[in-house]
């Protein structure tokens, strides 16, 4: 698969149209339509805020904690949406794969792009909340696109890898749901990482070696407060620091290789 073929005109048209359709269909038939892209994370935020910030008094040591929390939940939704939609993409678009010939990665990428659009809408909400909450805007905000891109690449790698196995073994969808539930507690979204650090430094380091934590903490660092504990300012060992990056590359490379090998038979197996 050479570069010019991958990005040729026909594939671009197809990718654009599939993404558009996916996005339209997502909110088809709902009264509030696209507004749900905004309402969902806001509602999740409201629940978490009441339970964790108000009732359990988490995060009193973190400036702008409500925005900090909203940022974490939105980025988490982005990751879960991206992976679960991506994993199911090949099966749910099976109808197309069986009838026309086109590069199969397009269906996976278009499914994840819908999640990207939702995330960008959420990002606007986060920024509005941040300004309302008194965060000073800075050029450093633009740096969030680096960890965002890292998070996207990780999701894409997972979607390619698990999505190609899911064609034959549909159990993957259910297994992934459980893994996502478990991962939610392994990532410092609802609890501040400082809480873990105060009882066990080793545990905090393990949490920060997870690429999802690394990306979310980096986004918070650039966007909300530089008091955020990140992989880079908390872990000293350069080899341990490299772990999140290596994990991202691992999923991306293995995912792409497995997908390329298996995609030849998707049309027959799906």
């Amino acid at each position: 698969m050479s570069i010019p073929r991958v990005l040729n005109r026909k594939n671009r048209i197809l990718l654009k149209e599939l993404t558009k359709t996916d996005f339209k269909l997502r909110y088809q038939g709902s009264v509030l339509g696209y507004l749900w892209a905004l309402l969902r994370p806001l509602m999740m935020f409201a629940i978490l805020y009441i339970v964790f910030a108000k009732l359990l008094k988490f995060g009193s040591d973190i400036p702008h904690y409500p925005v900090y929390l909203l940022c974490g939940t939105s980025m988490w939704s982005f990751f879960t949406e991206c992976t679960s939609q991506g994993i199911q993409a090949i099966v749910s678009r099976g109808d197309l794969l069986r009838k026309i010939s086109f590069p199969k990665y397009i269906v996976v990428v278009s499914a994840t792009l819908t999640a990207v659009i939702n995330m960008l809408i959420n990002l606007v909400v986060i920024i509005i909340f941040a300004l309302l909450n008194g965060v000073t805007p800075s050029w450093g905000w633009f740096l969030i696109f680096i960890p965002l891109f890292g998070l996207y690449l990780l999701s894409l790698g997972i979607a390619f890898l698990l999505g190609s196995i899911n064609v034959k073994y549909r159990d993957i969808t259910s297994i992934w749901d459980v893994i996502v539930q478990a991962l939610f507690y392994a990532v410092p979204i609802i609890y501040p990482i400082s809480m873990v650090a105060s009882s066990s430094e080793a545990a905090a380091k393990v949490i920060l070696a997870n690429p999802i934590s690394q990306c979310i903490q980096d986004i918070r660092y650039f966007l909300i407060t530089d008091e955020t504990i990140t992989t880079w300012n908390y872990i000293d060992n350069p080899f341990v620091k490299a772990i999140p990056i290596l994990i991202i590359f691992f999923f991306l490379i293995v995912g792409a290789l497995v997908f390329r090998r298996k995609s030849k038979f998707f049309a027959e197996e799906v």
Partner: protein
Amino acid sequence: MKRSIGNRTEISTDNDIAISVKNLHKSFKLPTEQAFGLKQAIFNRLRGIKGYKEQKVLKGLDFEIKKGEFIGIVGRNGSGKSTLLKILAGIYYPEKGEIVVDGALVPFIELGVGFNPELTGRENVYMNGALLGFSNEEMDTMYDDIWEFAELKDFQDQKLKNYSSGMQVRLAFSIAIRAQGDILLLDEVLAVGDAAFQRKCSNYFASLKEHNQTVILVTHSMENVRKFCDRAILIEDGKIIKDGDPKKVAEAYTNLWQ
């Protein structure tokens, strides 16, 4: 689990061969147990059961199609015609053998691929057009013609689920005939519809023939084979049993049941 894969290459030259197929084989692995899932796969592996049955669908096909030829592929249900077409289209991989396709190939395995009942007629037209390789701007220019030809102008902004099946086919056909390619693959798609629709199809075939378009038509209609094809191929049980003059092939096809 390693499977061998044959070659399918796409080129673009001025030679007069549009498609050449050499020693093409294809078999499918049909799961013997209904259950899809990891548990079954692990059990089967442990018990040494393969969990599938191999069914040979194509058993060594050889043929060449010249540019400008209108070819009919005929055969009983289950003889392997559609599998052959899907391999030519690049949807399935050949298991063994060589396929060389010279020029841009447009397959119609089914009319209205990607049609979504929840979207409006307009949205579906653009989606279906994208699957044929047309950009939004290109679709804009033919948009009115498509609805004109389908005779469905008043239904543009209705959801597709409110169309009758006949209306859907008319719309899909109206988009499909815009497709431009060097080689067209048609799989029985046009065997539906009422008399008026059939006449439109006939006119379409006639215009293709007039323009010396390379066409591969899979059909059960011997009338169409006799009328439009320059050559026909009869496939029976995964092998070519007759290749040549459409009248003789049509006769051989009819004789399969005698």
